[in-house]
Every structure is written in structure tokens, then in C-alpha cells.
């Protein structure tokens, strides 16, 4: 790889921007594509489409066309999960997310809960969630799960998440509180299509009982949405 190309790729990774390195196997010529925010970058439209599909699938692959064979190496930014609410389920879920290899941030303006003692080694913020989410930025590789059961804290986070491209948005709470939540969000201007992105009650139905089991159910649904598409089903 040429130095200029390597430096461009490093900048993309640092800026959490998806890039696909397209190497023509016949000539060895390499080109960096940005399938979600590039302007085509001089590449054939079919190659751009193939790069976008590979990035969506998060899967590098060989792609052939009459012009030749290209290896598409996908560089997606790491999955970033924001947990709103430094609650018991978050204490179990945050380390699990780390084990799976995703970045995690726990946000809770209640500074009595968002403490290093309760979340050793976990990134914490005591900002209000909408402020924290605006600072970290939400994109296609982001997930947001609200867990405080306090609308004053959960709702601003869900509004920010629904306005973003986040691949997974979940809200802890019973069926009854979910109905009230949907009514509040609808009153704030979110239509059925937007609200369909909200997973609530959150998590796959695996009969979870304990705090850690609920965390497993949430993480399972999150992985399903990442790997199988928006519904996760």
C-alpha cells in the first residue's frame, strides 16, 4: 500500500468513517472508496455499489466484473453502543459488550450511579444524554439503549437516536410504559416509520429472568440487528 493511501485510511479510521480498499488483482492498483459519503471517487458505479454492499455486510470479498477482479477490503468503524442509565442491567451489559468487541459508553446524569466503583474500566459520562450523544456523534455503526425508566432522561436520548442512522435503538420497560413512551414520542413528531425502529420491550424473547440474562437478551437482539438487518428477527 502506498504511504498516501495508508495515511488516508488511518484518517478514516480515526474519524469513524467507513472506507473500502479496492485492489485490482490484475494490476495491483489500489483505491480507497467511501461508499456511504463519497462522490463515487472516479470509480465505476457498479464497483461503488459492490463496495457499499460489502460495507453493509461488514464482509470483505472478491468482486468480479468484465473489467477484471477486485478485492474489496472493508474498514468499518467499531460498533459503538451507548447505554443510557447506569443501572444494574448496564453493569452486566457493559462488560459483555466489551467482550463482544464493541465500544461502550454509559451515560447517566445521576452522578451517584455513574461511578467508577460501579463500572470499573467502563467509559462513563454524567452529561445529559442528548448532550453526550451530540458530542460523541451517532452513525450507522451506533446503538442506543435507554434504561433509566425516567422519561426526563430516556426520552431526549431516544429522540437523538431516532434522528440518527443508529442500527439499533432499544428502551427498557414494560409493555405498558412502552405504549406511554410511544405516545410521548409521537407527540414530539415521530411517525410510525420512525417508531418502528424502536425496540421496546427491549431484547430477544429468551425468557430472561436475572439481570445478566436480560443483558444477554438485549445484546443478542443488538447483534441480530447488526448482522441480519433492522428487525433482527
Amino acid at each position, binding site marked *: 500500500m502506498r504511504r498516501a493511501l495508508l495515511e488516508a485510511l488511518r484518517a478514516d479510521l480515526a474519524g469513524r468513517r467507513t472506507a473500502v480498499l479496492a485492489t485490482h488483482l490484475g494490476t495491483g492498483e489500489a483505491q480507497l472508496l467511501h461508499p456511504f459519503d463519497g462522490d463515487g471517487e472516479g470509480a465505476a458505479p457498479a464497483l461503488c455499489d459492490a463496495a457499499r454492499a460489502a460495507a453493509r455486510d461488514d464482509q470483505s470479498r472478491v468482486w468480479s466484473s468484465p473489467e477484471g477482479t477486485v478485492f474489496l477490503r472493508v474498514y468499518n468503524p467499531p460498533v459503538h453502543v451507548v447505554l443510557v442509565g447506569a443501572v444494574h442491567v448496564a453493569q452486566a451489559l457493559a462488560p459483555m459488550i466489551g467482550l463482544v468487541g464493541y465500544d461502550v459508553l454509559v451515560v*447517566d*446524569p*445521576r*452522578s*451517584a450511579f455513574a461511578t467508577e466503583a460501579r463500572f470499573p474500566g467502563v467509559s462513563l459520562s454524567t452529561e*445529559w444524554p442528548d448532550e453526550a450523544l451530540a458530542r460523541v456523534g451517532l452513525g450507522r455503526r451506533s446503538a442506543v439503549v435507554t434504561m433509566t425508566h*425516567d422519561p*426526563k*432522561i430516556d426520552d431526549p436520548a431516544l429522540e437523538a437516536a431516532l434522528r440518527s442512522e443508529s442500527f439499533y435503538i432499544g428502551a427498557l420497560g414494560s409493555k405498558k410504559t412502552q405504549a406511554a413512551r410511544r405516545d410521548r414520542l409521537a407527540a414530539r413528531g415521530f411517525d410510525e416509520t420512525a417508531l418502528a425502529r424502536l425496540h421496546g420491550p427491549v431484547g430477544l424473547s429468551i425468557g430472561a429472568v436475572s439481570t445478566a440474562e436480560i443483558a444477554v437478551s438485549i445484546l443478542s437482539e443488538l447483534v441480530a440487528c447488526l448482522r441480519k438487518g433492522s428487525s433482527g428477527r
Partner: protein
Amino acid sequence: MSVEDLYHEALVRLAREATGAGALPAPVGRAAPATVQGTATVENPLCGDRVTVEVRVEGGRITALAHRVRGCVLCEASASLLGRAAVGLGTAEVEASRRAFAALLRDGTPPPPRPLAGLDVFAPVRSVASRHSCVLLPFDALGAALARASPPGTTR
């Protein structure tokens, strides 16, 4: 007591009015010689409520006050009351008002109309001990801002 009793109409209206919400405008021209100003942010670590109060004082009296609240309706209403009624008070009167407020919450002592009128709107909060700090928080922020007040342009 029901939720409707706690969030009664006058209290919700007070919160919605949000009198004094925002930031103090920069002083026009040269500040009067005795002018001091201060800013303080206080928070409730158990519910996340966060209040910032900015205050300007001339000759020992509040001449301008602005507040920014991230919190519940009760907290917003309390800050709005300060925005409406705190201009003109001195530090001792702010302290007396907070004492009157605390007495209302503690045992229902009717708050006197002076130096700060309107505290009685919070009478229903008395029976919900966990929410007392919500309504006192803006008063604590104002007290802290006054304690920090110093001539403009100086930093503390």
C-alpha cells in the same frame, strides 16, 4: 396524594413560563462601580437535575438573574419563580427565602409574602420527601452564585 395534586395547574404554568431561563446578556457600556456577578451550577446526584444560575448584583441587590435547568417540572418551576421574583433581593433575603421554603416543606409553615412571594405554590411538594431537593436546587444554585459573585472581568 395523586400526581395531579403534585403537578397542579399553577405549578405547571410557572414551569412553562420559564421566567429568567437563558443566559445573562453582556452588560451594556461600563458596569456600575459596585457591580459584581457570579455563576454556579449545582446538581442532584440522585435524579440528575442540574441548575446553573447567573446573577448580577449592584449595591448588594440582585439586578439580573438567569438560569438554565436540566431537570423535572418541579425544578423548572422553582427556577422560574426565582426568575420572576428574585430581582431586588439581597443575599440575606435570599437566605431567608430559602429558610421559609425549607420550613414549608418540613412542616407546612405558611411562607410569608416577603421577601419572596409565591412559595405557597409548592405546598403539595411537602408530602413527597424525595422531591424536596428538586425544588430547593435552584435556591441552592442562587446562593452559590451569590457567594461567588465578584467584579466582572475577574475570575474566581
